[in-house]
């Protein structure tokens, strides 16, 4: 018998698949294509194709909402971050997600739902007018296909490293599969596959923490092992955040609470159309409010299959993982920790299921990008600017072609990234520029009736420009980090937190200032769009346990308890 570390060093790839593993993967591809063909007959109208008929239950919409964010790169990246930074990475799943999801459910969802908008840019049109919609729609559409291409390349690269697959093969097989099932079944098909992916991810990844905790002798022993191999700070979520220098991430608690919890996560979970689109498909207002709460309930436990494998890797893997830039021949990077743990515990079949979960995560993430792009292009750009009065059939046809074209642009971007790798860093940074200011604009629009069209437009523009300027400032002069992130010791993630916080404040300040200097819309034009002027429909006379507020309180209490336990 060859020891695990020796076997791994002898392999030119991280894992080797057996015939049964390939059978599991082939079955997955066959099933998603079958779902696409089956659903093609239920995507004939605009509402069907772009909004899945607005007939999803709270469970389907909620799991799809969560899955749209559970991509393969997300799983592997955060498992790697857990190895690198310890349990601090869990903040991105708890305070960096749950409060925002509950805020979306209880405060913002009624307005998105009542306005019957097809998209977040569509809401901006109703609330602030055409210029705000165009800024938001064009930036979203552009960034979405670019992000899709970047993720496609990154995933193909992962498949090359992990399985030894050819990059061209990975790109074309996965992208053509996504193009077929989304073009045929529209958003409903994307949602079906996202829910399927949710189950595959849990089925494929849950075994790692179970076997890992068995091997290490339980959570208490795991903490001792991590303290020996790294530092005791790796297993505390809050106790090391009093200073930038007393935790592995180089971040202060204000960055986590105000930058991540209050701005970045709020911006992402409440205004990124990729995830919000899933909730807009809910069949009624109660389902629309329950869906993000169901998503939040499951999100709380995702660290079990993402963060815990990273921590277990820190404790049990015989080799030391390094940053991507420092990997030497035969070595592995932080991002390899999840495949390494899969290879450690999973035999034939189980390994195939784990790899299928990663492929499914990637493909459904791409389908999410493409379906959101298709909706924004068709409704917020094509119909708004190019062809206002076409028939419903025409827009559905445009949606199907846009799906194919969106996938092809993504493939083109993937090949561009292959030639110029630095594009990847720029695109990922660019995407984050729009999130925080957009949240400022949308939330002010919903909560403050005095906000005007000009205020919303200039606030969004100035917030975005300020975010880009801060990023460029630090890029040109790294010493500027002490001003942007409040400390020269701050690391990249900490910089993102503060950059988001400042750009949000710029957006809000400009929106308020310009609004106070311009003429507001009459109240009659804001009905259904703003708090205080809108009667939110009752969810009916239902039992306490069926009320969204009840489950929001339950999720909040569990979140607080978990944070105290892991303090």
């Amino acid at each position, binding site marked *: *018998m*060859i020891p*695990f570390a020796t*076997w791994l060093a002898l392999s030119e790839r991280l894992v080797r698949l*057996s015939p*049964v593993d390939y*059978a*599991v993967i082939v*079955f*997955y591809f066959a*099933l998603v294509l079958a*779902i696409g063909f*089956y659903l093609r007959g*239920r995507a004939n109208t605009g509402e069907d194709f772009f909004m899945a008929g607005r*007939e*999803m*239950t709270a469970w*389907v919409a909620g799991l799809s909402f969560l899955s749209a964010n559970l991509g393969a790169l997300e799983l592997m990246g955060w498992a790697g971050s857990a190895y690198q930074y310890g349990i601090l990475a869990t903040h991105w799943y708890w305070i960096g997600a749950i409060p925002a999801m509950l805020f979306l459910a209880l405060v913002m969802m009624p307005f998105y739902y009542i306005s019957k908008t097809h998209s977040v840019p569509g809401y901006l049109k109703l609330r602030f007018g055409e210029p705000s919609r165009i800024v938001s729609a064009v930036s979203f559409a552009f960034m979405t296909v670019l992000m899709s291409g970047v993720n496609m390349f990154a995933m193909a690269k992962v498949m090359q490293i992990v399985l030894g697959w050819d990059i061209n093969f990975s790109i074309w097989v996965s992208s053509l599969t996504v193009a077929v099932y989304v073009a045929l079944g529209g958003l409903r098909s994307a949602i*079906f596959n996202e*829910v*399927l992916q949710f*189950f*595959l991810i849990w*089925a494929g990844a849950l*075994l790692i923490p179970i*076997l890992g905790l*068995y*091997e290490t002798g339980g959570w208490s022993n795991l903490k001792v092992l991590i303290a020996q191999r790294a530092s005791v700070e790796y297993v505390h979520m809050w106790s090391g955040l009093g200073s930038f220098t007393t935790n592995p991430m180089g971040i202060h608690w204000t960055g986590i609470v105000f930058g991540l919890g209050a701005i970045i996560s709020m911006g992402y979970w409440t205004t990124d159309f990729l995830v919000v689109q899933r909730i807009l498909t809910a069949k009624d207002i109660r389902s629309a409010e329950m869906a993000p709460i169901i998503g939040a309930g499951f999100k709380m436990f995702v660290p079990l299959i993402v963060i815990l494998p990273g921590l277990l890797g820190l404790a049990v893997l015989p080799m030391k993982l390094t940053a991507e830039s420092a990997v030497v021949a035969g070595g592995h990077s932080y991002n390899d920790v999840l495949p390494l743990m899969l*290879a*450690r*515990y*999973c*035999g*034939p*079949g*189980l390994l*195939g*299921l784990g790899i*299928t979960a990663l492929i499914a995560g990637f493909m459904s993430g791409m389908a999410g990008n493409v379906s959101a792009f298709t909706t924004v292009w068709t409704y917020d750009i094509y119909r708004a600017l190019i062809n206002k009065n076409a028939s419903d059939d025409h827009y559905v046809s445009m949606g199907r072609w846009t799906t194919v074209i969106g996938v092809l642009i993504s493939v083109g971007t993937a090949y561009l990234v292959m030639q110029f790798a630095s594009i990847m860093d720029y695109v990922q940074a660019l995407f984050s520029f729009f999130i925080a200011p957009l949240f400022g604009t949308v939330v002010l629009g919903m909560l403050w009736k005095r906000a005007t069209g000009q205020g919303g437009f200039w606030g969004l523009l100035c917030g975005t420009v300020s975010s880009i300027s801060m990023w460029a400032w630090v890029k040109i002069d790294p010493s500027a980090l002490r001003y942007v992130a409040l400390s020269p010791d701050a690391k990249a993630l900490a910089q993102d937190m503060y950059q988001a916080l400042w750009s949000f404040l710029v957006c809000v300040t400009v929106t308020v200032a310009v609004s106070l200097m311009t003429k507001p819309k009459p109240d009659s034009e804001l009905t259904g769009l703003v708090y205080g002027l809108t009667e939110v429909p009752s969810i009916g006379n239902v039992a306490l346990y069926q009320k969204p507020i009840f489950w929001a309180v339950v999720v909040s209490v569990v979140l607080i308890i978990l944070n105290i336990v892991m303090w």
Partner: protein
Amino acid sequence: MHNSGISIWFFIGLSLFVNGLLITGAGLYEFVAPPANPVVLHQLHAGVWWGAILTTVGLVYCVKFTPVRQA
């Protein structure tokens, strides 16, 4: 989602059921013919019991949401 056509939960049940059967089969094969380079904790035969759990859950979903019963 259950009122017209095949429910999404049926597809999920089908996926878990087929994958569970494949994994259980591979686990049983390794049980009788141990591999030369086994994974860590091979002695727990995770493939057998994890595959059985997936098969069972998948079967329950398939039966509960089978299109014939829905119709």
